[in-house]
């Protein structure tokens, strides 16, 4: 692969940041931070298998991510059983299975990501996925807002709430999948959640919130790249991005909450 692979990788990272900001804003309002973490961690067993049997990690991660998404969706529907309990079990379980399956030398990459060149095809698929995510968020923005406000009123308005929740979770998982390789399973969820928290601090209307979250996310990726390229060259990209993201959040705390 050539220089182009690096450029593709960087561009896709920024696109991922935009998607993460948008999806994260809604995830934050849906109070599904925990579920978000689980979904990204569920990718671990799949990643482990992929490393073990030498096939594309995105395929393995994607497969278990999809299963995890359906699981969370089922759990959300089931109101009699505490979602938090089941999430706790699935969360720890997948990390353990992932750790057991993944060959030792690949463990750090699987957990914390690795920056690598990507092929034109992967890039194209990534761009397509981001386009799909952005389309979904803007196409269903109003329905999502109503569903956030009150699932009951949303249903009374004619929205198929259950289907909408599944679509949202799938969108969420797709976002995680895009970030999976370079952010790692442990940190892919972080770029969805932290910039949204920052955006929330700065916004009091939905439009500004989406914009601020995406900007915070893009900024974190940008500064993260700069820091690892010019200042701390030995630092991995994902921890750098997440630390910058957390720092931006801390800065947002300075502004009195509106």
């Amino acid at each position, binding site marked *: 692969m050539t220089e182009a692979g690096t450029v593709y990788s960087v561009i896709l990272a920024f696109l991922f940041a935009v998607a993460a900001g948008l999806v994260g804003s809604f995830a934050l*309002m849906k109070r599904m931070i925990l579920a978000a973490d689980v979904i990204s961690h569920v990718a671990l067993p799949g990643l482990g298998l992929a490393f073990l049997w030498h096939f594309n990690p995105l395929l393995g991660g994607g497969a278990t991510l999809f299963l995890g998404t359906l699981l969370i969706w089922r759990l959300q529907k089931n109101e009699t059983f505490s979602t938090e309990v089941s999430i706790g079990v699935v969360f720890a379980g997948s990390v353990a299975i992932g750790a057991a399956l993944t060959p030792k030398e690949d463990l750090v990459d699987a957990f914390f990501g690795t920056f690598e060149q990507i092929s034109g095809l992967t890039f194209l698929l990534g761009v397509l996925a981001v386009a799909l995510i952005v389309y979904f968020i803007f196409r269903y923005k*109003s*329905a999502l807002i109503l569903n956030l*406000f*009150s699932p009951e009123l949303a249903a*009374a308005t004619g929205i198929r709430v259950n289907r909408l929740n599944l679509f949202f979770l799938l969108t969420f998982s797709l976002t995680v999948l895009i970030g999976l390789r370079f952010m790692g399973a442990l940190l892919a969820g972080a770029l969805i959640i932290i910039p949204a928290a920052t955006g929330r601090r700065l916004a*009091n209307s*939905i439009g500004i919130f989406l914009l601020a979250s995406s900007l915070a996310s893009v900024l974190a990726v940008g500064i993260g790249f700069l820091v690892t390229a010019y200042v701390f060259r030995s630092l991995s990209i994902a921890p750098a991005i997440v630390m910058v993201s957390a720092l931006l959040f801390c800065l947002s705390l300075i502004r009195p909450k509106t």
Partner: protein
Amino acid sequence: MAIIGPNGAGKTVLLKALLGLLPYQGKVRWSPGVRLGYVPQKIAADRQMPIRVRDLLAAKADVLKLHPDSVDAVAAMVDLRKEVLRSGIGVISGGQFQKALIAFALLGEPTVLLFDEPAASLDELAEEKVYEVVERLQRERHLTVLLVSHDLSIVYRAANKVLCVSKDIVCFGAPREVLTPATLEAMYSAPPQFFLHRHGEEPAQASKASEHD
């Protein structure tokens, strides 16, 4: 029409079944072309959400593919002021929030409005305002209103039919005929302590309900 009954009798469940939000046995038959508006009893909404009243109304207008102007139209119907529309859903008063919910229900020009205790948790002044809005809508827009309420005075005032729901009895008819002390006692399994105020009488002479015909 008003729906009354003790807590846990199934008033809210009845409304939700009518709306198709809950599975039910039997048949719900609405006249063709009916459009339902629903004002729930309480919203477990996260009031911290960065959503303004206008965002919320606009979202419903968007889902129903209504003209954006319809938001201002329903806001005017319930006297929601511009500055309230611009405020976050978490910072407005309970009374304003309730009005916003009514405006929300009015989007899409419903022919039937289902109210689940619209004035619960409001102080008397706010409660009065909400009922004023409900009565005005009934009068001016010829809406059918199904009202779940604990407040017998509003039932007498605004309803021409009342449905009682409880474990033991179900009754239906005009409030003054159906709401006899005996039914109320059977329904709530305790004699109701309320006073009926009749206009033109001295307040001191207001008769106790059980003494009233």
